């Protein structure tokens, strides 16, 4: 293939420098088109499902406390080890969560803790404006995390069933998910609609067809 870097022009086009005039016409046209700028502090960006913002502990309206049962799954799965949980068991074996802290400065925002939580206690809100001059202020303890949740639902009007479909592990049938994450999701989050490799697709089609229907329930 021959690349022609300089298109041929006839004499008239050379005299009037057509390319320059074309460029000028383009810029003039663009001058009257609406700008794409978003005036950020006045104009907030739209939020999309799957946004992984500030961490929060969902406040259970019944107990007025966190839903956390101290199973330690989130602390175990966390790749950056930024979740610290302290608990004690009473004599009857009931577990009490004493402290639940997330060091946001170490968090990599992978969302695994939310995916793995069996009761939907820890979640990531759509809040993203929580920068601070003080490091200690973004090391959230349990009280701060519950407060984050209160602020979030006050701002946006969600309730404690706020579940983001993006935090649900993909390819797992709904029957195996914790109750809080067993909700209707968009089609592309079911097994059928997912973008997966050929091999996964083949195994799913051979034995997982019932799962695919299940996950839509």
């Amino acid at each position: 293939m021959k690349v022609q870097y300089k298109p041929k022009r006839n004499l008239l086009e050379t005299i009037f420098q057509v390319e320059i005039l074309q460029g000028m016409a383009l810029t003039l046209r663009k001058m009257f088109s609406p700008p794409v700028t978003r005036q950020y502090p006045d104009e907030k960006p739209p939020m999309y499902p799957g946004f992984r913002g500030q961490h929060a502990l969902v406040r259970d309206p019944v107990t007025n406390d966190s839903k956390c049962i101290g199973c330690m799954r989130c602390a175990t799965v966390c790749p950056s080890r930024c979740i610290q949980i302290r608990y004690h068991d009473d004599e009857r074996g009931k577990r009490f969560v004493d402290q639940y802290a997330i060091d946001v400065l170490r968090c990599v925002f992978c969302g695994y803790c939310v995916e793995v939580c069996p009761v939907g206690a820890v979640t990531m809100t759509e809040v993203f404006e929580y920068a601070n001059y003080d490091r200690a202020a973004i090391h959230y303890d349990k009280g701060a995390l519950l407060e984050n949740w209160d602020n979030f639902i006050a701002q946006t009007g969600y309730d404690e069933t706020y579940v983001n479909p993006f935090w649900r592990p993909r390819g797992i049938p709904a029957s195996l998910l914790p109750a809080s994450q067993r909700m209707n999701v968009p089609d592309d989050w079911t097994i059928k609609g997912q973008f997966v490799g050929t091999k996964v697709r083949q195994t799913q089609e051979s034995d997982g067809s019932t799962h695919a229907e299940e996950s839509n329930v």
Partner: protein
Amino acid sequence: MQILIIILQIAVLLAVVLLHVAYTTYFERKIIGHMQVRMGPMRVGWHGLLQPIADGIKSFFKEDIIPEQADKPLFLAAPVICLVAMLASLAVLPFAEGWALADINIGLLFIFAMSSLASYGIILAGWASNSKYTFLGGLRSMAQVISYEIPMGLSLVGVMMLSGSLNLTEIVTAQGTSIFSIYLFPQIIGFFVFFIAMLAETNRVPFDLPEAETELVSGYITEYSGMRYAMFFMAEYIGMMVMASIGTVCFLGGWNGPFAIPFFPPFWFILKVYGFLFLFIWIRATLPRYRYDQLMALGWKLLIPLALLNIFLTGLFKILVH
């Protein structure tokens, strides 16, 4: 008494021109912003209208840094030379019938002299800063000014031949009041050469090699800061306005328009100058910078022969008519 009146006129002209400089920077940022589908300054005042004032206050109170190895007297003098030369050329511009501060007979020559002097400021700034970037910027400016002064002067020879005068007021009156008798039509080649040379003279895109920020940091003004930097900036914008005024006077019929505006005779003149300034900004938003050898080739191989051809044709035309 006469002197007092002249001083008052000078003060008014200076105030008006400097205000125009401030708001030309604002409109430049706004227009380029919108051409690039952005918004430009928006936060200082309504739609950023107070931005140039904020910029002015900022640059006035900024620290004036002089490099240790700089040639101090020249470093201090360079922006002053630039600004004074540009301001001096404002004196001979006829904004309307009898609205020139100094209606001298060598008006056009005076403007050429002053715009060449201003480039001394740029070259001295480049030399005195004792930095490689400013030095390269100064060198480029020198070569560019020498190359483009010639076609610019030659392109206006046609105008001088037609009007038979170097006095700017007489050039305007020689064009008559009709829109069809302006020199743009008989001198279309001259206007073309003049327009390109004008862009190069004022160091504007696409000929902004002396301050090419993508290669030379900021060219000859790299080492300047605060008010001295602002003086170079003002000189550049006043240069733009002076060149736009020369284009208006010599090719577009000066203050004459389709109909006379009562109480404000320079209306059409100012409108035409604004048109030129918009063209400057529009070109800046569109065109990339010329390469150095392309700049030289354009000046010497195209513009000078064209300008000479224009002089020849104008002379032939004059002989044939009379």
